């Protein structure tokens, strides 16, 4: 079991955003989380690597409870890559330095080795020629592919994607999804929050529909999209499909 979420609750002040979430993600599984805005999808994802504090309940990453104050979250996060909607590349560094920073500073990987790995990853996302460019000179799609390469440089065991294509111009969505599809094919364990239903259907092993802080329904994609059981799922899908 890579990720296990147990009775997770999250409140911002009076506002309870996650209400008793239970979720398990197996090794090499691709879980896609869909749902309307404000349903708690992103918050759930951010709780899984503790970017949000957990109000109550547990999140186990490979058996370690990260809600436990004694857990070494910096160590655990090295195994949990994250890709953000807004890319969050470091604008004061070249693409290469963006990718090499964490491996060299956190894992103390020798520079030459980190550079070789970075170039390999850049090749993988099709941007080897951008190694010395600064993020500001890149398109949104290129930025997001770099962000994926940066996360992969830590050799994580699982990847979290928080609406990775929502901030992109439509014509750039495809190039990012292609990289993610390849990643899934290579056997990466992934949790993807997205509005891309095509991706969910094609790549997802399981689709989770969230609304109002609950997991309303989960199923394999074909089943969920073709035969949703819950009224709320039906209503949502009728609007987005």
């Amino acid at each position, binding site marked *: 079991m890579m990720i296990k979420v147990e009775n997770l609750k999250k409140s911002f002040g009076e506002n309870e955003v996650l209400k008793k979430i239970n979720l398990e993600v197996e090794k090499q599984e691709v879980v896609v989380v869909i749902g309307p805005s404000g349903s708690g999808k992103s918050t759930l994802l951010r709780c899984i690597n503790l*970017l949000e504090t957990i109000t109550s309940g547990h999140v186990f990453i490979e058996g370690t409870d990260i809600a436990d104050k004694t857990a070494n979250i*910096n160590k655990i*996060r090295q195994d949990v890559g994250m890709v953000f909607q807004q890319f969050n590349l470091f*604008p004061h560094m070249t693409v290469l330095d963006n990718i090499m920073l*964490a491996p060299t500073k956190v*894992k103390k990987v020798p520079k030459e080795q980190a550079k070789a790995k970075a170039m390999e990853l850049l090749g993988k996302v099709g941007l080897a020629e951008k190694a010395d460019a600064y993020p500001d000179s890149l398109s949104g799609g290129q930025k997001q592919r770099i962000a994926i390469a940066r996360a992969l440089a*830590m050799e994580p065991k699982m990847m979290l994607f928080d609406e990775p294509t929502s901030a992109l111009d439509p014509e750039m969505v495809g190039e990012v999804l292609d990289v993610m599809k390849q990643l899934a094919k290579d056997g990466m364990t992934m949790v993807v929050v997205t509005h891309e239903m095509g991706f969910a259907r094609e790549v997802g092993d399981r689709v989770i529909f969230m609304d109002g802080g609950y997991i309303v329904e989960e199923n394999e994609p074909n089943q969920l999209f073709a035969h949703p059981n819950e009224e709320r799922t039906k209503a949502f899908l009728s609007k987005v499909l």
Partner: protein
Amino acid sequence: MGVNPIDIIREYLPFLASGTLFTIGFSLAGIVFGTILGLLVCFGKMLNNKVLSAPFVCYITFFRGTPLFVQILLIHFGVVPAIFGQSNGIISGIVALSLNEAAYIAEVFRAGIQSIDEGQTEAARSLGMNRLQAMRYVVLPQAVHRVLPPMGNEFISLIKDSSLLAAIAAPELTYWAQAMGAQYAITWTPYLAISFIYLILTLTMSFLVNRLERRMATK
């Protein structure tokens, strides 16, 4: 018309020269110590624990909320004699300017750090960096870039504010202008002369800060 102003200035030239060096020295000391201390105070104020951050908040409130002149008097006639057994204009001057500058620098840095998007820290932390690494490699380099212009303004203010040290007989520019004016009972010559020197110092400072800014922008 008694003595020729040119002759007076010529007579006082060595004192004006050493006064200029003292003014530069006080300013540099204030900038260096003030920046180091200011950074520490800034991090202190940003601590999540309210009890731990309270002393730093008080520090900033006091040094920004009371006149520098009063702080100089307090330090010269109170703090320094209490510690060293006697007063010393140079030590008092450096201490007062540094402590005062630190409070302003701390606020400039805090604004700079908080202006960096939260997503930068989150990205760094999600890669496994601890709080300190995220600050050092990701947030601070970007913040320094942003705070350079307001820092330059603080440094220029500091050069001018160092003139207040004349009141505790620290041998800087204004002190010698006052001596000159008192000896010959004149006003225009000494104060216009040091105004000119202060102008050169502040213009040089703003030139240097501008150049640094441009160098960082085109890296």
